[in-house]
């Protein structure tokens, strides 16, 4: 065998070093997220480029809108004298019917039907007039004509009050009263002539106050969204895109996209790229199903994790929202009188007429599998009083291909139920016979159940319940989205309650890890002992070297 000494070829080593450095650079760049704009953002910006709406009429020039209106019905008549089909269309919408599906007669889901919640519980099939202040007709009644102005007037005023006052003053008939009526009529005329597509405050006049007050119900929908900052809502932020609600809640025949009740707001996941006339109600409508940088692991999440889960890290970030409501504590009096106390947010945490309530800000959502449908217990359904009753809950499971992990606000309640019939009970709250006036549960429950056409045994108690709201508004700017370890964590994963699937970091096997470290440390111990043996025996190594 011929062996010759040879000099290392310097050039080749330099080449090798260069390759090495390139590999290192590649690894480093894999570690850094690119500063480029992700494709989903570019897509959405394209889809929303033209922001200026335009119309071909000026409502202030129409003779019919220059009247001194004497009633709400006159205003509606003026509107439909041109918009002949508008009222017919609107009468079919859930905004008017308050029924999830008017053709479904068994369960009658809807707030005008047998649906209930754990806030004010029920509208008693609209017998509770207080609830109807949000019904878009004139006055607190479902029998009147549609009040177009609630959604379409730029002017903020209490239209019901205005027409009631006009009627009152005109009835009195004297000069001064007629003058007063004229002033209100002038204001109303201004409102009628300033017609717009619904703006944030139009929708907000009801939806920000769901549950009877600012931010009571949703947690992601309150008056903070009337003039939001970009930090609160990256789409609606006035210092950003300044979207109105209708930018995403697109409308066909007055049917507004985004209703989430018994059926999903969108049954298909498609973007404008696939269908240019699709509703823009989902994130994917504009952002597509793979909105993150090409090759990003985040794109692999979109089949099982809803955008909202990572991009809305907390809800109620400006105004507090109600997290629990215990009706069983109501009815207490101070010095024989009803009273209220306020919490750190200035919100009522106790009211004699309502009971004990908890408010919270910056709330981390709960996460559930969700296919877009909400399941619920109705006033007719039997409940199991042995545990907490889920009044509503998201439908979906890990196995369902249409389900994704989705954030929710879970509102805890304690509300009356019938001990004999084992159903939840619908007390009447407002009005003379209502609980808020009488503080008499038995009376309020009897009247309320009667209005529902449902039995009441006369024996009631309170039971703990939960009610869910999908969290979808208040999408934060992308630098505020969740980091991986919010969920991929052994100790405090946000998804700790979702079982049945393996999640890296959360679910690493303890046994394998203990065994693995055991083997590694045994190896270390072994070689250490061996080394000590060599050192002390001096049998091996340098000793014999020449």
């Amino acid at each position, binding site marked *: 065998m011929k062996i010759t000494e040879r000099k290392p070829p310097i050039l080749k080593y330099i080449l090798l070093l260069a390759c090495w450095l390139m590999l290192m650079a590649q690894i480093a760049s894999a570690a850094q997220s690119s500063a480029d704009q992700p494709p989903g953002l570019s897509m959405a910006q394209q889809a929303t480029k033209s922001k200026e709406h335009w119309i071909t009429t000026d409502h202030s020039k129409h003779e019919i809108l220059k009247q001194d209106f004497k009633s709400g019905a006159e205003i509606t008549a003026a509107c439909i004298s041109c918009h002949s089909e508008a009222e017919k269309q609107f009468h079919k919408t859930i905004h008017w019917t308050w029924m999830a599906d008017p053709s479904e007669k068994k369960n009658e889901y809807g707030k005008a039907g047998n649906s209930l919640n754990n806030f004010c519980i029920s509208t008693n099939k609209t017998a509770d007039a207080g609830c109807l202040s949000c019904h878009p007709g004139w006055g607190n009644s479902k029998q009147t004509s549609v009040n177009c102005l609630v959604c379409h007037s730029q002017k903020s005023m209490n239209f019901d009050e205005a027409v009631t006052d006009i009627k009152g003053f005109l009835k009195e008939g004297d000069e001064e009263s007629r003058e007063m009526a004229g002033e209100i009529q002038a204001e109303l005329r201004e409102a009628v002539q300033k017609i717009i597509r619904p703006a944030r405050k139009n929708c907000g006049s009801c939806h920000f106050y769901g549950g009877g007050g600012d931010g009571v119900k949703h947690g992601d929908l309150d008056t903070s969204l009337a003039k939001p900052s970009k930090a609160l809502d990256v789409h609606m932020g006035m210092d950003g895109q300044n979207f109105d609600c209708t930018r995403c809640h697109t409308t066909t025949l007055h049917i507004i996209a985004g209703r989430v009740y018994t059926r999903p707001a969108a049954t298909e996941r498609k973007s404008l790229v696939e269908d240019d006339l699709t509703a823009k109600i989902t994130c994917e409508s504009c952002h597509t199903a793979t909105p993150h940088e090409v090759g990003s692991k985040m794109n692999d999440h979109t089949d099982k994790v809803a955008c909202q889960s990572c991009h809305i890290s907390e809800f109620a970030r400006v105004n507090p929202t109600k997290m629990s409501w215990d009706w069983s504590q109501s009815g207490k009096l101070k010095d024989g009188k009803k009273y209220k106390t306020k919490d750190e947010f200035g919100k009522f945490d106790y009211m004699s007429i309502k009971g004990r309530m908890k408010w919270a800000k910056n709330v981390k959502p709960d996460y559930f599998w969700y296919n877009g449908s909400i399941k619920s217990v109705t006033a007719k359904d039997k409940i199991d009083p042995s545990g907490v009753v889920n009044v509503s809950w998201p439908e979906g499971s890990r196995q369902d291909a249409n389900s994704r992990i989705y954030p929710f606000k879970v509102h805890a309640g304690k509300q009356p139920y019938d001990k004999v019939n084992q159903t939840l009970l619908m007390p009447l709250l407002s009005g003379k016979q209502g609980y808020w006036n009488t503080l008499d549960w038995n009376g309020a429950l009897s009247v309320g159940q009667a209005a529902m056409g449902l039995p009441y045994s006369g024996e009631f108690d309170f039971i703990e319940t939960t009610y869910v709201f999908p969290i979808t508004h208040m999408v934060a700017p992308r630098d505020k989205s969740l980091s991986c370890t919010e969920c991929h964590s052994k100790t405090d994963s946000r998804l700790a309650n979702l079982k049945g699937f393996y999640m890296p*970091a959360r679910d690493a096997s303890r046994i394998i890890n203990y065994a693995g470290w055991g083997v590694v440390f045994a190896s270390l111990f072994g070689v250490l002992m061996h080394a000590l043996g060599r050192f002390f025996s001096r049998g091996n190594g340098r000793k014999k070297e020449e």
Partner: protein
Amino acid sequence: MATNGTMKNIYLYARFERLWHWLQTFLIIILLLTGLEVNGVFTLFDFETAVEVHNFVGLTWLIAFAFFVFWIFTTGEWRQYIPTTRKMFSVVRYYMYGIFRGEPHPVAKRKEAKHNPLQRIVYLILAAILLPVQMVTGFLYWGYNSWGEWGVTWLSLQAVALVHTAGAFAILSFIVVHVYMITTGHTILAHTRAMISGWEEVADEASVGDWEYKTKAA
């Protein structure tokens, strides 16, 4: 190592072999660090960085491994990995006893016989089983979203992750022993130097048995 004859410098590791060795060392260390972070053992970078680096380096390794497989078969070096029981006992006895007594290593190195029987079996298990298992499970783990397309939905991610983690600990344990074993040459750094320069000082030819050569002695 005590020698019973003259020492000789021989060119033991080809350039590609050394490049392969150190590249793989580098890749495996990065994979271990990032992999253990993804597993949740510690936080070194951040989770997202760990995942991205782990994926990139893992795929790099997979591609590089293909070159190694090509090399080992085209050069016939694969024969160095054929396991044998001959002298196995002497080698085990040497490391457990003889080494402390200053005895010579029972199996000398030659270019055509660079692995002793213990190395043969360990490196065969490593290169033919452990590393491929890591690559296959790692690739499956990486391609989790494509399982439907690949028709492997019957697999469980938990099982894949479990095997992958177990493999990682086995490799870490190998590294511990391997790093120690390379200090058992006739000097502490003799083996390390050989893997850098390719040249190793070995005992003279006479002490190598014919049976040890990967090919019949020429």
